[in-house]
């Protein structure tokens, strides 16, 4: 069964993309660590971290695409799962500091010491062990998504209503994590990490390894997502996206299908967050900002929703643009970014990848049509996922 799942997932595009990611996972760290800084092929550590960050964003966008592109659930709260995964990892990293904090308290993180906490809150126990933290990275977002989805999908909350309550969810989490009384460091969040699994978090080697881990995680998720999407389950997802009632009347438990996709997606987002935190060195409630979740939607849309490669390209494009623009035109980059979103929605409604696919498909169809003496009047364009958008 599992093998059939894998075999199906590996169509040519995905295979190449995954292979490319694996190559990056090896090549970039190698170029960073093994070449001299003035070597023409040297990749500076700055770029390693930067691209490592993009890869985690790409993973987040891919996770969103699974629910939005294939299942029609526009989650405006996906950054929350990302942040939750990040917090789980951050808590592990905080516990690793141990007695090396400013106050030399072996148990309590610094922010608890100076706010006079006397003992470690119960939910911080266990995070000194990596395996536990790693488990929490998927369990916590997964569980929250499961509970949230269980109620929402069972009650058939749909369309914009669902989008807005996911937004309410991330907003509520934002406010909650801002509270210093919660025990997550309030606005400052978790920071000042020292090491991960015993390796210095600032060392070039660790950064390279984190980059490789991000690339690997993305490649793996790509294969898994592709497997899901290409299975009969994936077909059901698309079916319920386009015609939910019909799918129900065929006897599918739509709420279970959605719940599974939503939970898996949240777990992927959690993994992305966990890889993100050690690379940027901080996690704070700002990651729960509703605006962040909207940005993820935008990366996915720019790349092409409902395609697997699209969100990856979109995340890297938009964030790369942001990195360049914020330095090159610090006063005007928002015009560029805002303009980009408007132009993409107007002129590339299917995103970069979707448009390219459409173009290729049309050319293929055109050739096929020529061969068959132009028999049918096909409307390739009219079948896009936005049919479901009208819901």
């Amino acid at each position, binding site marked *: *069964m*599992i093998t*059939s*799942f894998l075999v199906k997932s590996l169509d040519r595009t995905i295979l190449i993309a995954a292979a490319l990611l694996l190559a990056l996972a090896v090549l970039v760290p190698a170029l960073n660590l093994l070449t001299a800084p003035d070597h023409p092929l040297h990749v500076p550590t700055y770029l390693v971290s930067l691209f490592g960050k993009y890869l985690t964003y790409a993973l987040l966008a891919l996770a969103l695409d699974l629910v939005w592109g294939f299942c029609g659930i526009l989650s405006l709260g996906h950054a929350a799962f990302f942040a939750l995964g990040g917090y789980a990892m951050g808590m592990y990293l905080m516990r690793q500091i141990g007695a090396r904090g400013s106050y030399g308290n072996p148990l309590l993180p610094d922010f608890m010491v100076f706010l006079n906490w006397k003992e470690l809150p119960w939910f911080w126990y266990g995070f000194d062990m990596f395996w536990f933290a790693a488990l929490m990275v998927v369990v916590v977002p997964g569980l929250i998504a499961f509970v949230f989805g269980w109620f929402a999908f069972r009650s058939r909350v749909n369309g914009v209503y669902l989008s807005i309550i996911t937004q309410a969810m991330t907003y509520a989490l934002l406010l909650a994590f801002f509270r210093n009384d919660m025990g997550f460091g309030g606005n400052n969040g978790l920071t000042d990490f020292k090491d991960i699994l015993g390796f210095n978090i600032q060392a070039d080697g660790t950064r390279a390894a984190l980059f490789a881990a991000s690339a690997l995680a993305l490649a793996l998720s790509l294969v898994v997502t592709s497997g*899901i999407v290409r*299975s*009969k*389950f994936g*077909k*059901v997802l*698309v*079916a319920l996206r*386009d*015609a939910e*009632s*019909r*799918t*129900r*009347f*065929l*006897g*599918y*438990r*739509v709420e*279970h*299908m959605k719940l*599974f996709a939503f939970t898996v997606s949240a777990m992927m987002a959690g993994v992305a967050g966990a890889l993100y935190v050690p690379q940027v060195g901080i996690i704070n409630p700002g990651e729960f900002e509703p605006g962040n979740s909207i940005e993820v939607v935008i990366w996915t849309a720019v790349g092409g929703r409902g395609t697997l490669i699209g969100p990856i390209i979109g995340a890297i494009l938009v964030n790369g643009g942001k990195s360049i623009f914020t330095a090159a035109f610090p006063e005007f980059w928002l015009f560029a970014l805002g303009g980009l979103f408007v132009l993409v929605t107007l002129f590339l409604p299917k995103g970069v990848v979707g448009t390219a696919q459409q173009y290729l498909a049309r050319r293929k169809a055109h050739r096929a049509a020529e061969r068959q003496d132009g028999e*049918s009047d*096909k*409307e390739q364009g*009219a*079948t896009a*996922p936005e*049919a479901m958008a009208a819901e």
Partner: protein
Amino acid sequence: MTGKKPKSLLYLDGVSVSFDGFKALNSLSFIVEPGELRAIIGPNGAGKTTMMDIITGKTRPDAGEVFFKGDIDLTKKDEAEIAQLGIGRKFQKPTVFENHTVWDNLELALNRRRGVFATLFYRITGEDKARIEEILSIVRLAARRDDLAANLSHGQKQWLEIGMLLAQEPELLLVDEPVAGMTDAETAETAILLKEIARTRSVVVVEHDMGFIRDLGVKVTCLAEGSVLAEGSIDFVSNDPKVIENYLGR
């Protein structure tokens, strides 16, 4: 409970439902026997579609009983459960999965285990393939098996949807205006198809097209304002003065 209940396939008694004060169904009672083909007529707003909604679990009645196969209370179940029990439904507007191929549409409809993991690790078997091929030829779409459903003509979509219902292997089939928008030839063929289908299962057809209903030649129920106005053969019903006043005459 009446003695009739255990024998009948579908049993509705005293079903009422209202939307914002408007009584869509008013103490409706209705029985379908196993293997029966039944036609339902009635003016717009008579409660035909609402009745189907109630049978398939989309709408919950305010009052009344709905039983399937004697003792299965349908009012306590949702759409997916009811579909899995063996009640299929065809919508007024053809509803197929436009972004899937004809083949995938039928594969999805096939009466197999429909759980999350069952579908996730599903692998098509020779038996399933044969069944899909069979249905493809019944609904005359074999040549278009790899085309997206979106690219089918209106009539073909109707047929694909009927094919999907066949794949679902229901014991009771609810069909809402199957010939709307079809050519005369298509309509005639659809009548034949439905009669064929009704040989192995019960079918309830909602239609406006009196010619089509005559073609079917079955027992007819006329609904108006949420309750049964008349029931019997087409000739009997169409001569009923109440029916003429409420429906045909206008």
